[in-house]
Structures are given as structure tokens and as C-alpha cells.
């Protein structure tokens, strides 16, 4: 059964130096508050995985928390490149991280295989693509019925999955909707999980019988953090802070400016600041 904890407790209890962690969220519901707490608690040597490493991974890398990253698209969506990631890979600042690079299809299938308890994922992919030359974790198997060659990658099974969701009920069950990416798979594939939520409610009134709900017993820790996805968004709560994504390109372009921003907004702040960050974005939350 999920434990209700503060974000500080949840991170302290679940995330240790050297762990492999999936902070997931596909544009929507990216768990920024939780990543900031990990940075604040000074975790090191992490193997981080994520289909679309964006600002939180730029921040984790720039703050020296990361040893290795497993990923498929590392960019500031719609804006450009990730400058802290580039500085690590191109110049070794603060240190050079190891990369294991896949395609989106491979990562999505690998999380799916992890959730399904399989050792590997099988799909039609990577034909004529050069990642097969540089990533030894891409192999091929043969369909025993047709002889077709299919790609295989190891299942992703992180030590910890960290996601942000809309609501938890008092039992600790968690509800998501909208663009839900690979978050359900990441939680089911992981040994432990932390879910931050916008609010804790008595029950999920009026949801579909097929609503995307993770039962309490599949989750380790639940922490309420209003606005915890900012500058990402939470469907029905607040919109994406596109202006911040654009501004990040400038903040991250310089090592000093980056460190100053992180000191002020992460190291000397706490999860409670997120609620105020989304206060101006409520009308953009999307409705349905």
C-alpha cells in the first residue's frame, strides 16, 4: 500500500546514490518538484532514464547528479538543444556522463516489457539506423514463424519510477488522464515508486470505468505537491509554461547563470514554491 509522505520523506526513503531512476511524463505531468528534491538532497551517480530528457535532466546533469542517461530524444521541446547536457557530453562539465541511446519506439517498448515482467522487448525497428552500431543493447531476433528479423532491447526496470499525477484518493490509488505517456508502465516496471499529485481527494467521482488508475498497492510513496509539474502542466489544473521553456534556453546557456538559478530556485527553495509558480497558469489548464 502506498505511504502518504512529504516529498522530502518520499525522496529520502526511496532514492539512494547509484540508483537507476525513471522520471517520466511525456511533455505533460513531468515531475519537476520531485527532481528538484533529489537535487536538493544531493543524490549522486544516478542512472537516469527518460524518453524525452528535457529541463529536469538538464538540471540533474548540470548539478552533477547523473552518471548515465538512457534516453531517446534530448531536447528542449520546440525550443532547441539542452545546453547543460551538451556541456557535459561535449566539454565534460561538471563531468562527462555516459549515454545509452535508443529510439522512442525502443524506449516505449522497453518500459512496456518492464511492466509486463519480460526480460526484453521485441518490435520492428532500427532498420538501417546507425544506433545499432553504437549501442550494444540493441540486438535482433528472428520470428520463428516468418523468419522476419525483429529488434530486441532489454526491458527497462528502474529501481525507482517518479511521476506526477492528477489525484490520489485516501486509499493511495492514483488517477491520471490526458497525455499519459509511459508513466503507468514506468511505475509497474520499477521496484519502487514515488507519485506526486495535485490533490488528495475522498474519491474519484465520475471517472470512466476504464480510467487510468494505479492501485495503491503498486505504489511506494504518494506526496501532494500542488503545481509539482511546473513548467510542465497538469491537464485540467494549469497549462504548460511555454515562456519558461523558452527562458530556460538562456538560463542554461551559461554555467554561472545556471548555478545561480539553481541555487535560488532549487537549493534554497522547497516543494511549496510550485503552487505559486502555477498560479498564473490556471486559465490555461485545459478543460473537458
Amino acid at each position, binding site marked *: 500500500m502506498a505511504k502518504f509522505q512529504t516529498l522530502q520523506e518520499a525522496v529520502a526513503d526511496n532514492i539512494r546514490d547509484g540508483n537507476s531512476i525513471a522520471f517520466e511524463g511525456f511533455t505533460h505531468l513531468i515531475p519537476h518538484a520531485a527532481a528538484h528534491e533529489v537535487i536538493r538532497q544531493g543524490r549522486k551517480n544516478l542512472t537516469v532514464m527518460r524518453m524525452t530528457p528535457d529541463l529536469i535532466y538538464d538540471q540533474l546533469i548540470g548539478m552533477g547528479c547523473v552518471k548515465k542517461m538512457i534516453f531517446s530524444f534530448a531536447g528542449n521541446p520546440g525550443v532547441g538543444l539542452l545546453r547543460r547536457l551538451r556541456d557535459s557530453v561535449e566539454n565534460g562539465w561538471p563531468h562527462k556522463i555516459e549515454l545509452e541511446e535508443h529510439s522512442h519506439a525502443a524506449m516505449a517498448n522497453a*518500459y512496456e516489457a518492464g511492466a509486463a515482467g519480460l526480460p526484453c522487448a521485441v518490435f520492428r525497428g532500427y532498420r538501417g539506423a546507425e544506433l545499432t552500431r553504437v549501442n550494444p543493447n540493441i540486438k535482433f531476433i528472428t520470428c520463428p514463424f516468418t523468419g522476419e528479423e525483429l529488434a530486441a532491447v532489454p526491458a527497462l526496470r528502474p529501481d525507482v519510477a517518479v511521476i506526477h499525477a492528477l489525484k490520489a484518493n485516501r486509499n493511495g490509488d492514483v488517477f491520471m488522464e490526458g497525455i499519459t505517456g509511459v508513466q503507468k508502465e514506468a511505475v509497474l516496471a520499477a521496484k519502487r515508486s514515488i507519485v506526486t499529485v495535485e490533490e488528495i481527494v475522498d474519491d474519484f467521482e465520475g471517472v470512466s470505468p476504464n480510467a487510468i488508475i494505479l492501485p495503491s498497492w503498486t505504489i511506494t510513496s504518494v506526496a501532494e505537491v500542488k503545481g509539482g509539474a511546473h513548467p510542465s502542466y497538469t491537464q485540467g489544473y494549469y497549462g504548460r509554461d511555454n515562456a519558461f*521553456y523558452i527562458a530556460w534556453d538562456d538560463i542554461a546557456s551559461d554555467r554561472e547563470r545556471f548555478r545561480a538559478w539553481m541555487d535560488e530556485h532549487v537549493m534554497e527553495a522547497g516543494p511549496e514554491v510550485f503552487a505559486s509558480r502555477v498560479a498564473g497558469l490556471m486559465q490555461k489548464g485545459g478543460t473537458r
Partner: protein
Amino acid sequence: MSDFTPTEMMTVAAARALSSKDVCFVGIGAPSAACNLARLTHAPGITLIYESGTIGTAPDVLPLSIGDGELCDTALTTVSVPEMFRYWLQGGRITVGFLGGAQLDRFGNINTTVVGGYETPKVRLPGGGGAPEIAISCGEIFITMKQSRRGFVEKLDFITSLGHGTGGRDRAEHGVHTKGPTRLITDLAIWQPDPETKEFTVTSLHPGVTKAQIMDTVGWAPKFAETMAETPAPTTEELLVLRDLHARTKAAHEGA
């Protein structure tokens, strides 16, 4: 309204290649503008799918990211990302996929991974994302990219996604039976693969563009079709709808 930018011409030319019967796997940027322009003009029945899971989406403003809330709000439904890549892309349901990148070669192979060597790159680019499987699973691929010697290169630093490989039957020899890149739409011209060699060949120059401009912006000796067309200039309606879309988008993204 005879005044238009090369980017507008590129977007309009890409939009015209789409029909109401298409199911498009849309990327951010020019493809998103082209697909939505098609939807708002001659192809109201077109189905737009973004890899974030949104199916049959009809955004009022262009998304900044592949997963903006607008895409979900206006979609017929939204599925998980594993389902998107398994049932919808790999399932062979997409008629047209859009790709672009940092580097392109004459056979429509694309690099979005690194400039320089893979281990010690000069520029670490974002990587392939959906491209390796978009390139092989969609019925055909449209590439939109602005021409430049830096981007249109003799040899890619890294093959992120397969086009026609080394040309001829090379794509099929990789076990890939979809058509691959059938159209390269740039700010200057429309290119189509030669039926035999599969090398991209200029088949239509945009209004006012010269062969010399093409040669100056491509890192190889480009081929031109024997009879080249001139791309019809954007119509007043196309430009109005496109500019409206961009104006709404700008207002929305800055309005936060």
C-alpha cells in the same frame, strides 16, 4: 497578396501534398504548420496524430511541444505512448510521416544525433526520438527542411533514420517495404526521388528560385528533372489561413 516568405512557401507546398484521406504522424515545427494548414483548407478530413498519443487532433493553435494540452483537448482520443508506437505507428496505420533534421543526404537519410563523431561529438544533437521507426513504418515520408550547405551534405556524420540508404534497392534490402521519402519540400524547391537511383531530384522550383540558388545551398551536385515545374505561389487563402494560425499561436504562447 504576392508577398510570402520562403518558409511560408515550404509550408504551403507541404500542405498541398496532403489529402483528407491521409493519416499523418506530425512532428513539431514546419510539419505541424503544414498539416494543420491542410486541415484548415483543402483537407478537412485529414487525421493528425502526434507521438504523444493524441489521435485525430485539431488544435486551434500550433503546439510548442509534441504534447501540449491543446492537442489532447481537441483529439478524438489520447492513448498511451507504448500503444501509439505499437498499434498506430508499427501497426502500419500512418499514411504520411514527416521528418526533418540537422543533416540530410541525397537519398533522404537523416542525421539528428551528432555533428562529428558519436563518442566525442562537436555538437550533441537531440537524437532520433521517433524518427528511426517513423522512417520505416509510415506509408511514405515527406521531409521538410530549409536548404543549406551545412544541412544538405555529401555524407552524414551519423545515420539516425533510413531514407533510401545508398540508393537503388538498398532500402528494400534492409527489409523495409514502405515507400520511404517520396518528397523533399524545402524553402526553395520540391524534390522527388529518381525512380531508379532514388536520388532526390528537383522537380519543381518555387517562384523566383534559380538553379544556381539550389546548387549554392546543397553539398553535392544536385540533379534536376528534365521538365521542371514552377511551384504555384501560395494563394491568398493559404496565406491568410497560415498567418492566422501563426498569429493565434504567437498570442497563445506569449500570453502565459
